[in-house]
């Protein structure tokens, strides 16, 4: 990863296979590149007009049938080989390995949700045990997204209204990038997730802990967990930084300026409305892009979220916060 020109380390067999095709095409293309560009530059220099021979007659050859046939046949053969090699590897990386486990992926603006066979759910973090093949069954709740694992050299668009599939063989433990490659709106470039490949022992421990954690959480803890699992934190920070949407820090009890010259104080009703009907009150300066969570978050869930948001807020108004920040900057 230190070399600016190289791709990330190959993280699986699929990456090695696809890199091999890449290097093969590069080698053959470089040969033709140097041949063609070399002749172009050589002829341009070799046959430049020298002053003394300005009137020298040039060759009157107009065409050469054998040459034309040769340079139709050679490129045709070369591209046939490129096609065949690309096809064989493509068939291989898009064929499920026997015994793979299914994981459901739901994409939405601007996060990924992963549903595991044992009932666990994570958001923007896919955890897998090393060495076990996986089939991702993907769909989108809103617009097109692209699920891209650069270290695995694999990519598949995620389409609303249908399922698409990606087959993974995570061999090496480590943390890998997941990017969205299909433009999906204002948060497209921040729609990033991580793939964490763990040793099977660690994975089993994590899966067990995740399963039991839900049962013993306090109300604010449950709210924090829901925010993370529902993808809210992709757009709303909890540390005061501005992302796609307003920050949650200090939100509860804050007075916000809305589009249309209105103002609102964020109380329980406002938070509930903003989750169920996000377009109703838009904070000025932010885009109206949040999907509704009606049907996904229950009243109990929202109560837990509000309980958590309260812990992020000292009850001070926005202006006081601003003054305080300015004061700190002066220091």
């Amino acid at each position, binding site marked *: 990863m230190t070399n600016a020109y190289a791709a990330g380390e190959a993280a699986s067999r699929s990456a090695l296979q696809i890199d091999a095709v890449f290097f093969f095409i590069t080698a053959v293309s470089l040969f033709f590149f140097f041949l063609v560009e070399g002749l172009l530059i050589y002829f341009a220099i070799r046959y430049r007009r020298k002053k003394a021979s300005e009137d020298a007659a040039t060759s009157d050859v107009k065409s050469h049938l054998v040459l034309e046939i040769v340079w139709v046949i050679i490129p045709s053969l070369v591209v046939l080989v490129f096609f065949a090699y690309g096809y064989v590897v493509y068939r291989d990386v898009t064929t499920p390995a026997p015994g793979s486990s299914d994981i459901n992926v739901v994409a939405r603006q601007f996060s990924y949700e992963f549903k595991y066979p044992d009932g666990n759910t994570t958001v923007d973090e896919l955890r897998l045990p090393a060495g076990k093949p996986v089939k991702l069954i993907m769909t989108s709740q809103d617009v097109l997204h692209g699920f891209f694992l650069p270290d695995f050299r694999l990519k598949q668009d995620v389409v609303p209204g*249908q399922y698409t599939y990606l087959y993974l063989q995570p061999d090496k433990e480590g943390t890998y990038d997941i990017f969205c490659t299909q433009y999906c709106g204002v948060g497209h470039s921040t729609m990033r997730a991580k793939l964490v490949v763990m040793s099977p022992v660690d994975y089993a421990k994590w899966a067990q802990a995740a399963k039991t954690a839900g049962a013993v959480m306090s109300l604010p803890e449950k709210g924090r967990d829901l925010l993370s699992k529902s993808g809210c934190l992709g757009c709303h920070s909890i540390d005061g930084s501005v992302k796609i949407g307003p920050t949650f820090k200090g939100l509860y009890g804050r007075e916000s300026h809305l589009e249309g010259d209105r103002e609102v104080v964020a109380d329980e009703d406002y938070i509930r409305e903003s989750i169920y009907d996000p377009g109703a009150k838009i904070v000025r300066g932010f885009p109206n892009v949040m999907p509704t969570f009606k049907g996904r978050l229950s009243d109990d869930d929202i109560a837990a979220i509000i309980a958590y948001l309260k812990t992020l807020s000292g009850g001070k108004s926005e202006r006081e916060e601003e003054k305080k920040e300015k004061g700190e900057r002066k220091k």
Partner: protein
Amino acid sequence: MAETTADGAAIPLNGNGRSKGYLEEKGFWSWALTLDHKRIGVLYLLTTLLFFLVGGIFGLLIRIKLMYPGQEIFSHHVYNVIFTLHGSIMIFLFIIPAIPSGLGNFFIPLLIGARDVAFPRLNLASYWIFVAGILIMLASLLRPMDTGWTFYTPYSAKTAADVTLLSFGIFLIGMSSILTGLNFIVTIHKLRAPGMDWHRLPLFIWGMYSTSIIQVVATPVVGVTFLLLAMERLFGIGFFDPAKGGDPLLFQHFFWFYSHPVVYVMILPAMGIISEVVPVFSRKPIFGYKAIAYSSLAIAFIGFFVWGHHMFVSGMSKTASIIFSFLTFFVAVPTAVKVFNWIATLYKGSITFESPMLYALTFIFLFTFGGLTGMFLGALATNVHVHDTYFVVAHFHYTMMGGTVVGFLAGLHYWFPKMTGRMLNEKLARLGWLLTFIGFNVTFLTQFFLGYKGMPRRWAEYPAQFQDLNIVSTVGSWILGAGILIMVVNFIRGYYAGEPAPANPWKSLTLEWQAASPPSTENFEKIPVVTDWPYGYAKRKPEGNE
């Protein structure tokens, strides 16, 4: 003294007893209502060049935003609008119309020895339909587009931006493009000078002919697609949105059925220009005339069956992907044939390096590179990795800018003396060329590596691992901008203060150089009679001034 045209009308003469240059008549209405193909061509050229500069400024803004991670000169939404405008303007208002409607209008009749195109009034109408389309596109800026120039559904069906208005503007621009294509096909069939059979046609005409066919056949599809999208947005009819029972992949099929062939609308006329410039400055007959002419038709034909290579990871069936990959590779063959023939034309020539030739050689150099990088995109396995990354961005800039735009610039430098009656300053032209060449490669070569490293396209920001190459690319865009700026200054200087141009400064054999510089309104005093092909540079020595 008064001469008459073929149809008997008197040719207007100016004081010197010569027929009037097409630029002599002044005044707004003499331009706005002109039926002269040359004036309409100039109108198109000025309009498209203006939008080339506007689109270029948006391109520079994109590079500034991506200079380093977390750059906050403007918001993500504004960035999305800017890359959409950059793409839409460059594609619909510059690359598609610049060579066909601009240079094509001006030079098709001159190259085939005609007085005008077949339907001059239709020609004027298509220019004003084009302008109407532009105005409607500008009106959509009130709620600016943020979908990318590809309009993928369901995002384009849902976004608050004014997609309907913009797509109506593009609908009109498409209509203008169809009318122009139709006009050119009839012109090339019916108005060739006596003796100019199909195998004596200049190769630029072959390129334009192939392009016109694509325009007439493919453009209606994108018009229909945008109508369907408008009906979905306005009346809620579910063509593409799965929430309404539609299919988003259907949109992609419709869109690329037009938008893939249209890349050949852009490149074929540019290839035609290269086929004119290379023999003139090599003083040698073009090598493999028939191969170059028929390969244009072959590219136009095969180009209709490869649109699916934009959709290998879209969720389209695997079988379809495999078939499209196979077909895609066979567009490469006629393209390679052209490159080999141009290089063979150089062999044993007597080559000089005036600015048109510098641009033409640059075209061959960059387009070859762009074409070879297309191999990675045509092959299924590697496409899966680099699709929708900066690799694709770099590839299409090498073919579209390194190819089409550089070919267009070769044509502008080559024909500038004919169009204006003035010579360009050669030193400025070479400086502009050099900076453009260096800046272009610094800007876009880096993006192949960014894409291979995995940086997705259309990102408003990126993690730190992509920093190094992005800043190189941004600095390159400034060099490129400086090169283009010098070139534009040279055009303006040349028009007002350039040396007067002789009728045939490059000692070329094609017919346009037999007309005066600038040509008279009727082009030729007498319609020339053609007795040979236009590339016999080795056999006979061309006269300087006719």
